[in-house]
């Protein structure tokens, strides 16, 4: 069992505007090799939950454990792709991707070999000498994923990896992300508020309620891969999840 989130709560305290309970008693387990998506309205606490798994913020109560080891801070075991990628603009693509390998003190030739392998995986061979500013948004996204994958993390954490991309590009990049993750064979926890993206990529979708960030529903997506967005079953799933999201949002209004 790689990731166990057990009864986690998080409150942001502010003397002026009062306490903001962002996550309340959230529990789930993510299995080896699973692709799990957090789906929920904007502001429901998805990023907050993911950053706690990343180890950038601490939990107020409850616990998060990876391979039965409690998470205490950031680690190479958990590769993180940020909402805005957070690539280092002063490093070339190649040096961005090999950053974690250098921090681990991997020998140069092994770094080179791993870089080559990763670039091939994402069809980025030949771009390693460029700077992030010289790449398209879609290429930057792939570089960010490769950088997080370089040290072979146990789990990959993706915060709206396609948030900044337009609609047509989104589908293309979803295909690429799906194949990239499949090749890497890692466990993934992703955040999105795009229903179709969640159905296309995930084994399981966790729907979160806004205002108090509780888990509202846990939906298993039982469809063969690669998935066909125009199939009836796909639409059944997206319709079902859209209804759930609507309810998640209504719940927020009634509070």
């Amino acid at each position, binding site marked *: 069992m790689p990731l166990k989130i057990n009864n986690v709560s998080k409150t942001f305290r502010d003397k002026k505007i009062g306490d903001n309970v962002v996550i309340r008693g959230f529990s789930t387990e993510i299995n080896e090799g699973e692709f799990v998506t957090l789906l929920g309205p904007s502001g429901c606490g998805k990023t907050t939950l993911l*950053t706690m798994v990343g180890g950038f913020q601490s939990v107020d109560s409850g616990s998060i454990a990876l391979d039965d080891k409690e998470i205490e801070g950031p680690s190479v075991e958990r590769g993180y792709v940020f909402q805005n990628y957070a690539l280092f603009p*002063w490093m070339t693509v190649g040096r961005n991707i090999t950053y974690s390998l250098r921090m681990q003190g991997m020998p140069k030739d092994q770094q080179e070999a791993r870089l080559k392998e990763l670039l091939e995986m994402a069809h980025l061979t030949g771009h390693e000498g460029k700077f992030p500013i010289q790449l398209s948004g879609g290429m930057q996204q792939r570089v960010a994923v490769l950088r997080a994958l*370089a040290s072979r993390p146990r789990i990959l954490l993706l915060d709206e990896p396609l948030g900044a991309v337009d609609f047509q590009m989104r589908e293309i990049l979803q295909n690429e992300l799906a194949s990239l993750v499949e090749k890497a064979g890692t466990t993934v926890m992703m955040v999105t508020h795009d229903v179709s993206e969640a159905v296309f990529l995930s084994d399981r979708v966790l729907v979160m309620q806004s205002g108090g960030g509780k888990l509202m529903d846990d939906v298993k997506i039982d469809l063969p891969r690669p998935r066909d967005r125009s199939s009836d079953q796909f639409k059944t799933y997206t319709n079902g999840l859209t209804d759930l999201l609507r309810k998640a949002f209504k719940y927020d209004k009634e509070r």
Partner: protein
Amino acid sequence: MGWVYFIILLAVLFTVWHFAAIAIDRDIVLPNFAATMRQFFRNWTDARVMNGLFITLSRVVRGFGIAVAIGLPLGILMGSAKIVRDALSPFMNSIRQVPIMAWIPLALVWFGMGDGPSLFIIAISTVFPILLNTISAVMGVDPNHINAAKSMGASLPKIILTVILPSALPNFLIGARLGLGLAWMMVMCAEFVATNEGFGFLILNSQQGFQFPTLYSLVIMSGVVGYGMDLIMRLIERLLTSWRFKNAAENK
């Protein structure tokens, strides 16, 4: 195209100078243009002038080095730790309000005649632009860049070296450029009173000797040298932060 207008403006300026000097006919107000220019070009091969220039430049380089050695680490510390910032800011913000000229008598008392006061004046006028710009640069480092580095196993020294320094570098260099400009101006003041060699001393000397074409030519020369130093700083900026100019270069 801009440089064509620059040449035209320069020619206009020189022409006005030439005829104005003839009309006024008093060296002390405006010396003869041709004589000043002749002196200006002679300066670059004059051993005494070049020696003075060299002494002053070496002071600037050393004083600037001291300012960087203090301003950069202190700026990183103050930029990253709020406690240090809150504790030191009042000192910084009051000391930097002291007019540079007011330091000169004090520097004379502390260091006596010679290099000391000049070095001190250069360092104190350069350190604040460097410090202030480094602090704001470090405070502006994207927290997700630091988080990303942490999640890739970077230790604190590595984070400083590979994330904080490079992202603060552009602003640090802006501070360094401002500081160097100030240093070049202020070192002259120090050299008027605290030394008997260097470029500032030569300027004072020519004034006291009523050599007005020389005085004017030295003043022009100090502007040209300052401009050259700024150019070198801009070049260094382009070299060290070349990644910032990649996109622009491609779109040309």
